[in-house]
């Protein structure tokens, strides 16, 4: 029988890896992603539902889903949803990211 599940739907699939019990404290950028998600979802803004967030993660495709870590998937989904809702444009995002990259270039190594 063909398994027609999507990639994220992995419950019960064979896996011989032990559960990785090592933990890390959340990095500031991860907390900021979490905070952005919470604020966009609140009653004041109502710009991102849990289901929109899920859909964005599930639509990343198997390859990106595996390559990205957890909060990388989150910020990708948040960003795609905000683009779709025209909160900002691809151009604005591209310019802003280039600006942030350029600020980094100025950093002494």
């Amino acid at each position: 029988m063909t398994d027609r599940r999507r990639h994220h739907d992995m419950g019960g699939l064979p896996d011989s890896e032990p559960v990785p019990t090592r933990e890390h404290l959340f990095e500031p950028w991860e907390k900021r992603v979490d905070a952005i998600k919470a604020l966009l979802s609140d009653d004041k803004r109502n710009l991102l539902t849990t289901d929109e967030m899920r859909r964005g993660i599930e639509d990343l495709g198997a390859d990106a889903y595996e390559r990205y870590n957890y909060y990388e998937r989150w910020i990708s989904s948040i960003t795609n949803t905000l683009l779709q809702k025209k909160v900002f444009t691809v151009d604005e995002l591209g310019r802003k990211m280039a600006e942030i990259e350029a600020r980094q270039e100025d950093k002494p190594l």
Partner: protein
Amino acid sequence: MNQRHEHAMYDVDPLHHHPPQADLEDTRLTHHQVMQMAVAELLIEKNIVSADELRAQIDFMDTITPARGAALVARAWTDAGFKDRLVADSKAAAAEIGLDIGPIPILVMENTAKIHNLIVCTLCSCYPRFLLGIPPDWYKSRSYRRRAINEPRKVLAEFGTEIGHEVELRVHDSTADMRYMVLPMRPQGTGAMDEAALAELVTRDCMVGVALPRP
């Protein structure tokens, strides 16, 4: 937002401990970190969120710890009526002690001598965040999501938790619309302990079901 003045990731595994590494703070931002900063700055420029709101939200998240879930468990251990109300309607019961369980319903699953409960989210990472905080890495890991539902005893053994075969193991798969928290059994030998001392025994992992409280 200045990435360089904040602490980089560090390891909390007690057997393999590294101090925070200052030099890591100066490593270059990843593509996704740049994306996060860009999104935050655009949202601030467009007056959708303010920098103060972002900071306040992060501060708020830092106050949401497993101590909230533990307070509910300790109250349930010392007040049978409260336990019944907690299992029947966790939102109303939590409100009795001034706790908000958040917008998504949480079912509290009671462990007994005959039933042990375990929670997972096979689809992603749904978790009773308002009671336990941000889910740990292993909860979101591929192997936990895959294995918790078909070989839960083996998974529990990896956490050092042995559940006798006479005990029925129930695994609850969380969704975006329904989350679960485990109400562990009060350990024997804790008869003299008060509610505050009992709450100290209740760890996050006990409320996910991968561990048992120890007196």
